């Protein structure tokens, strides 16, 4: 009867996609009786609501992984024996997401446990006191939390910041541009850093291949998130 089950897994995905038009970033049947749905942190509550309304699932647990730059949260539900995992990623700089304990009361304890061990603020959670850690545990110490860190070695960080912000691996120093002008050359070479259009084109390419995310680059600050 695996064909019927497969249909049911696909039905679950179809329903979530239908109820949340365009919002689940990626849905897949990872193996028999396992469904994975990626949602943004802002859409998590709506996804849980859609699942509750359609299937009245059993909440299994919440798991967290600290991947250095972000924390991945996986909310596992059982829908008639099929495990549906809603996955979302929150940046460690904010480490914040809304609680679902008001619509899934069974999540109250595990949210609290994850909050204490990883330092996440589940906004709106009803319990303020510690659950798994001693009451006098230092607030800043998170037993399973790692420092904010990306994959680039320290030696490459400056070069990557220069490359992504200007298309040039070197910092553009005033003495160099002045020296060029003095020698009768254009202030900047004909690189992308001299043309807004070319620089945007290059930066769009970087975003498209996902290097900015892999490297942990913050476009607004023009810096790596861990520098």
């Amino acid at each position, binding site marked *: 009867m695996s064909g019927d089950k497969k249909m049911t897994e696909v039905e679950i995905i179809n329903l979530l996609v239908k109820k949340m038009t365009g919002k689940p970033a990626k849905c897949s049947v990872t193996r028999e009786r396992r469904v994975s749905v990626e949602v943004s942190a802002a859409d998590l509550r709506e996804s849980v609501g859609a699942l509750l309304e359609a299937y009245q699932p059993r909440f299994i647990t919440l798991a967290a992984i600290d991947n250095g730059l972000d924390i991945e949260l996986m909310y596992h539900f059982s829908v008639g024996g099929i495990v549906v995992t809603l996955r979302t990623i929150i940046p460690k700089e904010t480490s914040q997401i809304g609680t679902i304990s008001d619509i899934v009361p069974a999540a109250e304890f595990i949210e609290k446990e994850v909050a204490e061990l990883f330092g996440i603020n589940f906004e709106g959670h009803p319990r303020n006191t510690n659950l798994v850690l001693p009451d006098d545990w230092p607030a800043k110490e998170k037993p399973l939390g790692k420092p904010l860190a990306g*994959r*680039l*070695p320290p*030696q*490459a960080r400056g*070069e*990557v910041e*220069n*490359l992504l912000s200007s*298309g*040039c*691996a*070197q910092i*553009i*120093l005033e003495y*160099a*541009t002045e*020296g*060029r002008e*003095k*020698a009768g*050359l254009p202030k*900047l*070479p*004909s*690189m*992308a850093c001299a*043309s807004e*259009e*070319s620089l945007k*084109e*290059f930066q*769009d*390419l*970087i975003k*498209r*291949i996902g*290097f900015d995310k*892999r*490297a942990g680059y913050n476009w607004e600050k023009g810096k790596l998130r861990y520098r």
Partner: protein
Amino acid sequence: MMGKHAFFLGCTIPLRLTSVEIAARRVFSQLNVEFLDLEGYTCCPEPVTLGIIDKELWVTAAARNLALAERAGADLVVLCSGCYETLIEASEILKHEDETRKKVNEQLASIGSKYEGKIKVKHFIEFLHEDIGLGRIKEAVTTPIAVNLAIHYGCHLSREVGGDDPWRKPKMMRELVEATGAKVNDYGLEKLCCGFPISQFDREFSLQQRLLPKLRSIEGTAAEAIVFACPACTGQFENGQDMLIGSGVELTEYPCIHIMELLALSFGVPPAELNLDLHSSAVKEFAECFWE
């Protein structure tokens, strides 16, 4: 008849060693070779660190640069040895690895670009030697540089595709240096890396185990200066000499001159027109010395 050519200057030459760009423009102008400036290019990207930490970034950004030249209908003449390594290797990958080329072109399509592998990538040393020829270069020499020099070829200059002799381009460089009237002094450690790549991880090792043995060997010759084809190697020698001397090592401090600067001087370009004061070693003084 020579086709269209575009300069690939890289980042370091136009923004750190402008004297090399100035010299190259003067040399090619005197040889009546016209070059396009590649509009909107980016860092090649650098092969040693970026090429290792993210292959997709490296090959895609390199492909965008190659596509700019292809769109302009020009072969690339690369002025920086590190950029040459990236661009020649990326062009070979894109020529021979169908899956990679397909994937890269899908990404390039998003910015309205495409690379078909129609252009040639040449190191400026092989362009000077093969396309211009030693004869024309010798004819252009009006101020022979009659001095003893040592050559640091640099590892990237040995990069060959298709299993060719890794000493093909270094031999060309030697002949070009000799064409200026200089005498090349062998020192036995030409094949040793200058230590620049490892300096990013272990500065002391790069100075003591790479640069210092080379400098000691050169001290055993009559060389008065060292010639380079790579801006990163030039920087490693110039900064490294200062650091070694600063740490108490007794050492001859050599002027570190780029071959393009040497050619420009031999073609009669006055040192004052080359911005040689951008060097931290005594290149300017060295050039003025034999110019008089």
